[in-house]
């Protein structure tokens, strides 16, 4: 069900607990600029101001913490302004990994998929998000798949789609493959207890 962007809804989002590093707004900025240019970014900032939560994207500090509600609001406003369907939203998440500074921290550990999956990944996640847990479930190199889950990370169904693309982008930099897919196999918003993602490659 589509969430309607109103002042009230925005206010409700702000009640979400937790914070995220400013880097997520940086990747949003670059996506909007790439798709709609300066005009698109200006319009986005104006719309957010109207909702009562102005964001000056260029003034966001990469390593500072910002409310997770603001991060979800930014994503919803972009989806609305750029008329993004799920496919495009997935693509936005995928592209974010190519420019995200968090990914630069991740790729420091690309020498070992096991290490990044089981040790460094959850740690880096915790350093960038003060909410939710990224929990590795299974890494099967022979059958070429990964299962991981996110607990207590129930921001918005829109974010589930975005995260699907993001995870695909992230693992495509660690696994050399011509084709990689990512599916959300369990979703809190669909009645599951947590979010579960299955990443497969050829």
């Amino acid at each position, binding site marked *: 069900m589509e969430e309607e962007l109103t002042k009230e809804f925005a206010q409700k989002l702000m009640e979400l607990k937790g914070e995220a590093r400013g880097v997520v707004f940086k990747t949003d900025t670059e996506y909007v600029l790439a798709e709609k240019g300066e005009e698109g970014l200006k319009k986005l900032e104006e719309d957010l101001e109207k909702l009562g939560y102005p964001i000056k994207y260029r003034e966001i*500090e*990469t*390593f*500072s913490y910002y409310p997770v509600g603001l991060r979800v609001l930014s994503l919803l406003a972009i989806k609305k302004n750029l008329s993004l369907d799920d496919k495009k939203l997935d693509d936005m998440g*995928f*592209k974010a*990994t*190519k*420019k995200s*500074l968090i990914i*630069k921290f991740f*790729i*420091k*550990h*690309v*020498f*070992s998929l096991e290490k990044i999956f089981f040790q460094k990944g959850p740690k880096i996640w915790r350093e960038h998000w003060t909410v939710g847990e990224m929990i590795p479930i299974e890494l099967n190199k022979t059958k070429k798949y990964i299962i991981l889950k996110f607990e207590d990370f129930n921001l918005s169904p829109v974010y589930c789609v975005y995260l699907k693309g993001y995870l695909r*982008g992230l693992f*495509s*930099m*660690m696994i*050399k493959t*011509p084709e990689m897919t990512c599916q959300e196999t369990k979703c809190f918003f669909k009645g599951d207890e947590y979010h579960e993602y299955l990443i497969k490659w050829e």
Partner: protein
Amino acid sequence: MEEKKEKVSVEEDKILVLLEDLSSLESYARDLFSFLPLPVCLISSIGIILDTNPSFEEISGYGTEEIIGSPVENVFDEKEIEALTKETLEKGVVKNKEIKILTKEKTEIIGSAATTLRKTEEGEVVGYFLGFFDLSKVKKRERELKETQAALTNMIEDAEEARVNAEEEKNKTEAIINNLTDGLLVFNKENKLLLMNPLAEKIFDVKTRDLINRSVSELKTFPTLDPLIKILEKEAKKVFKEELLVKENLVFEVTTAHVEVKEKKLGSLVILHDISREKVVERMKTEFVSLAAHQLRTPLSAIKWTLKMLLDGDLGEVTEEQKSFVTKTYKSNERMISLINDLLDITRIEEGRYVYKPVLAELEPVIRLVINSSKDEAERKKIKLEFKKSEKKLPRVVMDVEKIKLVAQNFIDNAIKYTPAGGGVRVSLKCLKKEIEFSVKDTGVGIPKDQQERVFIKFFRGANVVRMDTEGTGLGLFISKNIIEAHGGRAWFESEENKGSVFYFTLPIKEEFEEFLKEF
């Protein structure tokens, strides 16, 4: 409690300062990476491109989202990058390794790569940075230089080959000139002597070094060269031939020819061909013909008179049949005598013994006489013979009447002989400014174009007339031309096969004839 709060506040302030410093550092690193004009990328140890700067994206043609996360083989030559990765992982640092980038547009860019390993704090290899220096322009320039060098080398080789060829040609030409069996002199366009071959030196008993670069007039001062120079000064035609008697029994035919390139005169050649032997043979031949003709004429004359006596009945009655045979024999004998006379005339002409008895006389009566003598033959052949006399009164000319009569007779006889029945022969006399022109126009068989050059050469007979009349000797026109030229006149003709011919001669009017005589 207050102290604890204050301590927390200080710690928070420190964190804020650290965050600000981190942001500044991130911004600085990003700006530096973005500004760097050298294409740089970070490649993971398993061969995935993890990061690139704008310069790398520009040179490869791929956008950030396209290139980051893509296999390194998409952007680099597979074998080259495999070798470079291996070397980097082994050595840690590689400098100046030639490698090709494969752009999105499928073009290749040659460059030099430098790599350095990137490790974690724990010393584990993350991958390596690769800096790429575009050598395509340098390579292009290098290729152009190589091509230019190759072209220059080719040109030098060609020039050297041409020089060697020219040298060989020069040597060959020199050898040919030096070994030429003819004497050779070469003059430049200013008529200064450029070259003289050894044979020419020998002929004139001179040395080339004394004569080189001297003009024709200067060469006159060398006595042995004087006769040659006189010939050269006299002739202005492009090509001419003349005989030069150097000393007794040493005769050369002098041929001069202009050397021209695209109608521009570069100089002239003088060739001296030894014709001494030909002259001796010719003289011997003439003497033999003269002797033979003289020896033949006496018995032929005896035969003639005997036959005449037989025909006249001085030796008794002859039957009609016998008379017919004797008449034929008499005519054949007459032709033999005529041929012998012609041969004797030729030998006289060639030996310079052809005697002329010039008198001042009128030409028209002579011509009328010849026409009258030809009328019967013309009528017999049903040919209309006309005479068109000059409108003006003709001045008298100096001539050997008998010889001129011979020429006119020859022209008219030929016209009648080679004009078919029903045709016409027109004899004309015309008074020109300095000469009298005689012409005989016929509607005869004409002379084939390809044979016209040889008409006045002795023994020449046109191929078409040989088929018609087998009696001619081919000597008449040769004798006629010599007679006319001995009078200072000219003889020529115009002819078209199957349409007819016009034969002309001119005789100079008295004053002109006297001028002509001064030359001898």
